[in-house]
């Protein structure tokens, strides 16, 4: 009976509220690759367009690396992307080094207030035709993010529903995602170094993000 009902809802495209993660592969043009081959493989091709996904992790867990990789992949596809940078920590040089075409990036920086940043995020989503819109809350304390009205993320999900836009929230904790969005969790791992511990030629070799999909579709 349940399977029949779910099948009927999917047939009528009313399945977004189903809680069961039944396999429902999306066509390739409805997926946006993240540029991370392992993650794209696990996601079946990438983040689903028209849905809200999130990257959650602590500092130095590779959130920004994954974010820049995703931005680079989007701009390489010819898409226009936007990033709402609440704490003004986006580094254009790092982004360019990761292959992001900065001319296709709309950067809303130093909003000073998370609620004002949320409004800017909504404005960008409502404008439409952005391939990827990022809401960077990585430097905002989780307690502040939890103060957002509970309807916030539902409204965001409805704003992009059916569009080609991928909305992506970067935060320290799991914050929100739409039913067909994904949560990519990153664990803080040991940093990589080159050279001996006491050597003056020792170099920081970067963090290695190990993404884990918490709730798959």
């Amino acid at each position, binding site marked *: 009976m349940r399977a029949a009902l779910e099948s009927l809802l999917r047939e009528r495209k009313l399945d977004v509220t189903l809680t069961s993660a039944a396999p429902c592969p999306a066509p390739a043009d409805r997926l946006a690759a993240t540029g991370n081959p392992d993650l794209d493989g696990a996601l079946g091709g990438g983040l689903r367009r028209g849905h809200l996904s999130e990257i959650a992790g602590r*500092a*130095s*867990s*590779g*959130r*920004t*690396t994954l974010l*820049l990789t995703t931005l*680079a*992949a989007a*701009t*390489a*596809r*010819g*898409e*226009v992307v936007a990033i709402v940078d609440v704490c003004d*920590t*986006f*580094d*254009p*040089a*790092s982004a*360019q*080094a*990761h*292959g*992001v075409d*900065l*001319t*296709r*990036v*709309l*950067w*809303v*920086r*130093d*909003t*000073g207030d998370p609620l*004002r*940043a949320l*409004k*800017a995020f909504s*404005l*960008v989503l409502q*404008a*439409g*035709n952005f*391939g990827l819109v990022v809401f960077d809350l*990585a*430097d905002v304390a989780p307690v502040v993010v939890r103060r957002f009205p509970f309807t916030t993320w539902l409204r965001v999900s409805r704003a992009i529903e059916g569009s*080609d836009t991928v909305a992506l929230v970067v935060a320290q904790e799991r914050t929100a995602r739409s039913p067909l969005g994904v949560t990519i969790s990153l664990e*803080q791992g040991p*940093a990589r*170094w080159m*050279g001996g511990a006491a050597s003056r030629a*020792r*170099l*920081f070799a*970067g*963090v290695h993000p190990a993404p884990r999909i918490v709730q798959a579709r």
Partner: protein
Amino acid sequence: MSIPSYDDLTPPIPDVLASDTVPQLAQFLGEPSPVSSFQLPRATGCVSSRSVAGNSPGDAQLETANRPLANVYACLRGAADADTPLMAIARDFSPRVMRVAAGEVLVDVSGLGRLIGAPDDIVRELRRAVAEAPVDAVVTIATTQTAARVLARVPGSTAIARLPVTVLRDLETLPPAASVRDRERPYETLERWGIATLADLAALPAGDLSARLGRRGVALQQLARGCDPGPFVPDPDVPRFIERLELEWPIAALEPLSFVFARLLDPLSIALERADRGAAAIRLDLRLTDRSVDRRVLQLPAPMRDPRVLRTLLLLELESRPPSPPDGGHEASIDIVTIEIDPAPSRITQFSLLERAVPSPETVSTLIARLSALVGESHVGSPRVVDTHQPGAFAMDPFTARPTRDSTIEPERVGGHAVRRQRIPPAVRVNVSAGRPVYLAPSRRGIPSGAVVQAAGPWRSSGGWWNAGSTPASVTPMPRSGDSGLVTPMPRSGDLRQGSSCAEHWSKREGGWDRIEWDVALAPGEVCRIFQDRATGRWFFEGLYD
């Protein structure tokens, strides 16, 4: 078999029969009025032979007062720098306006017979318009462009028939490369022949003149007879898209002003659509109740004419920068609103299956305006990496969404690490042991802290010291091996604001930097970059590797 003569080989010359033109020319040149002369056109046939035979011109004008005129031109001739006002006056009468020389404008008034009346009435109206404008100009009217221009050159009491041939210099159209010698040669020849006036030149046999002076001689004679060398080619009309509204009651709020904008922008948008134009810029003039005018110009990234978009942009502009009186008062009510559109050819959008949809320029303009009103104009844009080694340097460019095809090339990865950079590095307290940082203590919340478990460095970086105002380098020595304790002294009591003061100090040092950098991994797991400013010896937290 007949041998062709020279005249047979010469190209036919239209309207060169003296018997056909000289009587009319004589009448034309014998007209005494230096300001207004009018000869009814032959082509329309509305001139009866009575007028040529000597009936009073008034009869002919009366006869044609209610008929559409044909081939009637008015000439407005003023100073060389009077083009703009003369064109404006001419456009008030007719859309068919041609600038023929500096300070000289021809108007095709053929269609004004029904609207204004007889030619004398047209001249009178033109003269009145010239008198009301801040420009001095002569107004003449005739059936040909040349005749109107010749009449405009007649001095006060000189008979037209006695005008010198040299008056045709201004009316000739010669190649720009023609030398002065070539320009003057026919006039010298005519002078040697004793041909001094227009009447003398017009009376010459055209065939003989062509044989001796060539085509140019015939062209000069045509001008002397009042014939046009070419058709009337009106200048493209450049209409002004401007709307103005005087309010009965002053407005101080944005909401009622939006209705005023809608009332002004709707007809402007319709006019732009009819002219196939878009708005490249909006000029908004708000006259305030204290008689001051708040002027602002909105440059648009692409021509657009959607009145809703234009109204939104205007409202957002006023929302971000409300009009204020020049004396700095707070209350600013508006009593006159004027909107002028700078037109540009409308945008032609060709959609393609091979290009991704991007936000339209209208959408981008509205979005940028909204975001600018929300977070500030300088905080919205497209980042650009500048050509410098200064850490964290970047520039902001206006954001424009350009459609491009999918790139099949993988993005170029230069390398490097993803950094979350502090725009103004906050000061931190660092314990140094054996020349290496061993503990990081933050000066405010949000900055990682803990024991240093891994470190790479030191890396010295400096630059921009050659700029004026920067602090010279090498004040604080490098930490030596064996040093213990703190390079940056621990804050004393009452020194809790050290972080913010250091941040302010750092932000004011524009242009130059000289520092020692360390990449450190802290015990809690964060990896960050810290640096010591060599000028002050203080440590700063630059960013987090993530």
